[in-house]
């Protein structure tokens, strides 16, 4: 006990110094900014200082001990494991994307907030303490021991690699985006710089190094998230608690403004309506073009192109000369005209959808399941609940999270550590909806109605940097900004918050460092999961059980390098649909692991046949539904009960349970030894069982 508590004291002191040191570093960078150091240099400073820091921690934690390498020596105290799990968990999507999703979708985006936190109840109540008592190294380890034989273990390895790999690509993508945006490096170079950062952490010290870097990364990411939001809240409401002020002060005003925008009798509503009318005309024009294309084919295309060319020629010849702007627009129309029928169909289809979206009235932020009619609302509600369930069950089945609970010193600490994990995750997740409301308040009350001649600085800055994040055009040419004239990309919300709150650039650098910490820490955990599944489960447990320690670690480190390079290569090809990949990983993990893991603890009768059947059925149905219905795969079969492909797990998870139950009942009960293992797992300590096993 005394050894343990002095270790904890030591950790607190280290991380206390570390946090102080980091704050000091931010202040020094702030001073440099005041001395006139250019922003790009500040970006480099943040990028390299933090990666260097993580590398330092990784280097100090280097190890050649198997238990240290795979499970950090099983001596990570609950609070620190909580921080590490928090960083492991919160990815670039949580840090940068979530507030943007909430800004765009209001209530319906809360599926992610609830799904990605409520899953921890399942981890705490159904899995973490039991996996800790089992106390091996990986999740396939548990499947292998509980169900016997190599087949359950092998399916586990396959599923772990499948969902971790899809997820890690999204993380490395995030790393590339952040490094390239804040340093001006090219995307591909950004990916490999980030990768170097990931590898130095995990390569030398495995889980031990990853754990202590993740704690450091959590501290950076939570500071980076909180500081700008608190500041923004003070600026707008005078209350330094955004989680309260957003609901009591900002939301009522946002709701009142939404009503005003939707009511053509008010001045603001009337100008919104004027813009919407223009968008409706554009949508109608695009629809007419599409219809003309269907009827006239290539001939129609040629006709339209000639009409545009003639108009351009007329404008050029006009006396007196027309405005430069009008001429530019006409030239652009000719230059960007679709070159064949397929391109035209796509371009006009997209234009029609975009214009229709812009011509719709403003959706109330707090309204749940908004839709045209009752049928639409029911469909939205069903998909909301299905997504929440898939995200929750997926949370409780992602191997890189479950693996973290092998690292605590005891079952008792494992239980506490799930509490700390969720607490640290909660800090960010209950702030994100507040941030979305505060930014919406700023946009609705300050940006809308301002003059195009005097846009707020953050708007013109971001519009100049990246049109996908911020685009603003005076559609109805009245010189005043209307809501329908603004297009905001989701990632902008978090990235621009420091500027909206009027904070110096150093805080923007801090936010970038936070986003990088979120992406790196998650990528670390995922890569380690994949490498361990291959080196421990496949190589050591199945190919060469007599391999000496050194060779096992060499195998693991080599595989880590290979997997990391493969992932970075795949990422540099920029596969689309990152958000879908992330969502898919949850459905896949939930359907493959959750039933076999939970029934493995709570139902002694579950056996190998059942586990194999359940995992294959769950995984198979989930993959089948995604491939059949997700547009990316090009089959586009009708949906089952209107459920979106991202929630495919809603079919896979129950079938997984059914598979385990039916398969087990149709074959003999598991052996005495396996039933004893279940008892061993259920009780933190059975007297006479041999203390050493639970150590």
């Amino acid at each position, binding site marked *: *006990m005394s050894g343990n508590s002095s270790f904890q004291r030591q950790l607190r002191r280290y991380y206390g110094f570390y946090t102080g040191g980091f704050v000091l570093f931010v202040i020094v960078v702030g001073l440099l900014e005041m001395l006139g150091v250019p922003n790009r240099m500040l970006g480099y400073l943040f990028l390299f200082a933090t990666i260097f820091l993580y590398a330092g921690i990784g280097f100090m934690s280097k190890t050649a001990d198997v238990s240290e390498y795979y499970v950090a020596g099983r001596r990570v105290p609950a609070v620190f494991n909580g921080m590490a799990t928090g960083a492991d968990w919160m990815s670039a999507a949580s840090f940068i994307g979530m507030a943007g999703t909430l800004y765009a979708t*209001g*209530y319906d985006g*809360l599926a992610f*907030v*609830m799904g990605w*936190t*409520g899953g*921890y*109840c*399942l981890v*705490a*109540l*159904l899995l973490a*303490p039991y996996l800790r008592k089992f106390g091996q190294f990986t999740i396939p380890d548990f499947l292998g021991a509980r169900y016997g034989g190599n087949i359950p273990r092998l399916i586990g390895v396959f599923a772990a690699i499948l969902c971790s790999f899809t997820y890690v690509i999204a993380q490395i993508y995030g790393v590339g985006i952040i490094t390239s945006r804040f340093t001006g490096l090219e995307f591909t170079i950004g990916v490999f710089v980030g990768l170097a950062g990931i590898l130095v952490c995990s390569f030398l010290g495995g889980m031990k190094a990853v754990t202590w870097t993740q704690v450091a990364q959590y501290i950076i990411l939570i500071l980076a998230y909180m500081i700008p939001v608190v500041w923004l809240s003070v600026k707008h409401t005078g209350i330094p608690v955004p*989680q*309260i002020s957003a*609901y*009591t002060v900002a*939301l*009522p005003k946002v709701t009142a403004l939404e009503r005003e925008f939707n009511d053509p009798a008010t001045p603001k509503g009337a100008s919104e309506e004027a813009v919407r009318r223009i968008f409706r005309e554009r949508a109608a024009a695009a629809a007419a073009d599409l219809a003309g294309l269907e009827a006239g084919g290539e001939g129609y295309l040629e006709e339209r192109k000639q009409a545009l060319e003639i108009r351009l020629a007329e404008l050029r010849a006009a006396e007196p000369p027309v405005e430069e702007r009008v001429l530019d627009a006409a030239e652009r129309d000719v230059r960007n005209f679709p070159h064949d029928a397929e391109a035209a169909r796509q371009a006009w289809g997209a234009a029609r959808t975009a214009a229709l979206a812009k011509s719709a009235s403003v959706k109330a*932020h*707090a*309204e*749940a*399941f908004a839709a045209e009619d009752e049928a639409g*609302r029911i469909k939205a*509600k069903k998909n*909301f*609940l299905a997504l*929440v*369930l898939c995200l*929750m069950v997926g949370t409780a089945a992602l191997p890189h999270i479950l693996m973290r609970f092998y690292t605590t*010193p*005891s*079952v*008792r600490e494992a*239980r*506490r550590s*799930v*509490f700390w994990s*969720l*607490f640290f995750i*909660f800090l960010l*997740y*209950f702030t994100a*909806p*507040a941030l979305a409301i505060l930014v919406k308040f700023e946009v609705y009350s300050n940006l809308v109605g301002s003059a195009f001649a005097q846009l707020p600085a953050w708007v013109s800055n971001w519009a100049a940097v990246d049109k996908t994040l911020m685009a603003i055009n005076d559609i109805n040419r009245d010189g005043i900004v209307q809501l329908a004239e603004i297009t905001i990309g989701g990632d902008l919300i978090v990235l621009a918050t420091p500027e909206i709150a009027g904070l110096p650039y150093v805080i923007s650098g801090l936010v970038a460092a936070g986003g990088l910490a979120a992406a790196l820490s998650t990528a670390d955990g995922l890569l380690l999961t994949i490498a361990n599944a291959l080196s421990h489960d496949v190589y050591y447990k199945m190919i060469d059980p007599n391999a000496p320690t050194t060779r096992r670690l060499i195998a693991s480190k080599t595989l880590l390098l290979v997997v990391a390079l493969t992932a970075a290569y795949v990422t540099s090809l920029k596969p689309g649909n990152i958000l879908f990949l992330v969502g898919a990983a949850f459905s896949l993990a939930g359907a493959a692991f959750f039933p076999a893991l939970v029934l493995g603890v*709570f139902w002694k009768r579950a056996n190998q046949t059942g586990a194999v059947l359940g995992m294959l059925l769950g995984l198979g149905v989930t993959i089948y539904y995604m491939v059949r219905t997700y547009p990316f795969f090009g089959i586009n079969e009708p949906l089952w009960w209107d459920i979106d492909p991202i929630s495919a797990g809603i079919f896979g998870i129950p079938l997984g349970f059914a598979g385990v139950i039916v398969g087990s009942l149709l074959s003999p009960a598991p052996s005495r030894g396996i039933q004893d293992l279940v*008892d061993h797992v*259920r*009780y*933190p*300590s*059975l*007297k*006479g*069982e041999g203390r050493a096993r*639970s*150590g």
Partner: protein
Amino acid sequence: MPLTDRHREYWRRNLSLTATLLAIWFVATFVVSWFARELNEIVLVGPLGFYMGAQGALIVYVLIIWYYARRMNRLDREYGVEEEED
């Protein structure tokens, strides 16, 4: 080693605690979301349906896990299945 009746009772109490907390989890998540439109009519700290999804449910989750850890760690000692201090 064979399980005693005390052991079985410990496991039963664990199961009933787990089931109760899962029921609370289910209500806070799915039942509340199901009625989100109706709950939005009630305004406490913002519209209630929205508030529950954005904060209320999360607070319930944190409390569930906190209570479970506390209760189970006590139950271990009560039934003599706790781990030795190391």
